[in-house]
């Protein structure tokens, strides 16, 4: 029985980190109604940023957050402002601007390949003070860096919900996500709101980057692995839903870790997709998806 409990613990921890990554994607989709295919690449940028900060300064990866998170915020802010905004403006009367999806796919390829060009294809690992650390509760082994991941997920989610609920900009972001024309009529600059939402979504990937580097390889296409997972999680949980992203992340984490007890871990992907299809079959809007008029 212990191995199942072990799998549940590991799955929940890893799943919460998936959920954190999906949180950024669901925020960007919820506000701008754009599927950001460059989301995984933003994570890759976050991981490289965290990697180099830790390598060059030797600080604890969680201290690197101070540099990486603002860096990623501005990266996302200007990516939206300079690259995506012109396309959105050209399609300002279109409800779901599909051309933007093509643009974000382009950003994905460009970012991944620039990284490949500059840093090469090698898998990089950084030895941090907590790499490989773990502690035991009874027979159960808990990985310390993954536990920190869970804690980061809780802190970021609470902070994000607080920000959206109580601040002026948070309310403006929610208003623009519900009705962009009405938001304009209330004096909200929708493109500024988009820049900030995109910046926050990307900054969250900075957090994920810092959380991941103590136990994950950094390489130019690392984003792709997370990209696909994030899409599944976000759709599973309900597009634009914050609790949906978190729960979806944990579900995927659990399937991967419990499934791996009974079969080769590559086969767990199959179960992930089967569960995904089954949920969509029963609840097409996703677990927490509201039947709203996107």
């Amino acid at each position: 029985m212990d191995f199942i409990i072990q799998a549940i613990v590991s799955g929940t921890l890893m799943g919460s980190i998936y959920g954190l990554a999906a949180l950024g994607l669901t925020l960007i989709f919820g506000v701008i109604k754009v599927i950001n295919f460059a989301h995984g690449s933003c994570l890759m940028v976050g991981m490289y940023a965290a990697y180099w900060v830790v390598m060059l300064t030797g600080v604890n990866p969680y201290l690197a957050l101070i540099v990486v998170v603002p860096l990623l915020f501005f990266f996302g802010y200007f990516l939206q402002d300079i690259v995506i905004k012109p396309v959105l403006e050209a399609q300002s009367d279109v409800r779901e601007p599909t051309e933007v999806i093509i643009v974000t796919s382009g950003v994905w390829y460009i970012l991944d390949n620039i990284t490949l060009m500059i840093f090469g294809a090698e898998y990089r690992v950084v030895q941090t003070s907590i790499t490989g650390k773990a502690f035991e509760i009874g027979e159960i082994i808990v990985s310390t860096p993954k536990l920190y991941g869970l804690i980061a997920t809780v802190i970021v989610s609470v902070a994000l919900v607080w920000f959206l609920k109580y601040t002026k900009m948070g309310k403006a972001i929610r208003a623009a996500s519900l009705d962009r024309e009405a938001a304009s009529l209330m004096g909200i600059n929708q493109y500024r709101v988009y820049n900030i939402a995109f910046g926050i979504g990307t900054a969250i990937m900075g957090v994920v980057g810092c959380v991941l580097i103590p136990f994950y390889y950094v390489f130019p296409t690392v984003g792709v692995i997370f990209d696909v997972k994030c899409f599944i999680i976000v759709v599973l949980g309900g597009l634009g839903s914050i609790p949906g992203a978190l729960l979806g992340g944990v579900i995927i984490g659990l399937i991967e870790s419990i499934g791996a007890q009974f079969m080769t871990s590559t086969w767990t992907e199959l179960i992930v997709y089967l569960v995904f299809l089954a949920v969509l079959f029963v609840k097409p809007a996703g677990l927490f998806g509201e039947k709203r008029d996107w």
Partner: protein
Amino acid sequence: MSLLEIKNIDCFYGDVQVVYDVSMHVEEGEIISIIGANGAGKSTVLKCISGLVKATSGEIIFDGEPIHNLRPEKIVNRGVVQVPEGRKLFTLMTSKENLEVGAHNPRAYSRMAEGFEEVYKLLPRLKEREKQLAITMSGGEQQMVAVGRGLMANPKILMLDEPSLGLAPVLIQEIFQTVKKIADKGLTVLMVEQDVQHSLSMSDRGYVLEHGRIVQEGTGKELLENANIREAYLGI
């Protein structure tokens, strides 16, 4: 000098022209109605003033300054505020949050407390419903929130696009009374309406729009007595 002056504007949706050479003026403190059939271009004129649709030619002057090249949020900050057709509330936000978002522009944000006081005095029911999600409110209440949200933006001119749309007759009375109260406090009101009887009888002046062109203008009383208008819009 007029508070709002529209000079010869043309508006298009894609290749289709919907507003042809429209000119009108609104003086401070007036209530003005724009009436016309469905698809006459009434809402487009308001959208054009708000900057949601750009006029391809012509000028819009507010308070002595051109506003037709400004972005919508800048126009709101000048004090030109629109309560859009169909209310367009932020459905998954509470009534109070809707009002708060109304005061987003810098001119209104600094006086949000006074704004709330004024709006709750005018529409006391909104205070009772503060915590209710907009989507769960009745049509009449939603319209009240929409008007309240517009007032929170600290307008110099309040533009109402079909405030009576989709409401029961008794609520239509109520909404027009509210508009009257707002105007009595000295606020300039520009209203687009299909309820010609109600809107013209309380308006200082009115414009009649047909197929995107102004075909008639006059005082509310003149227009109500006009034989063509009585036949076309009142069926008398």
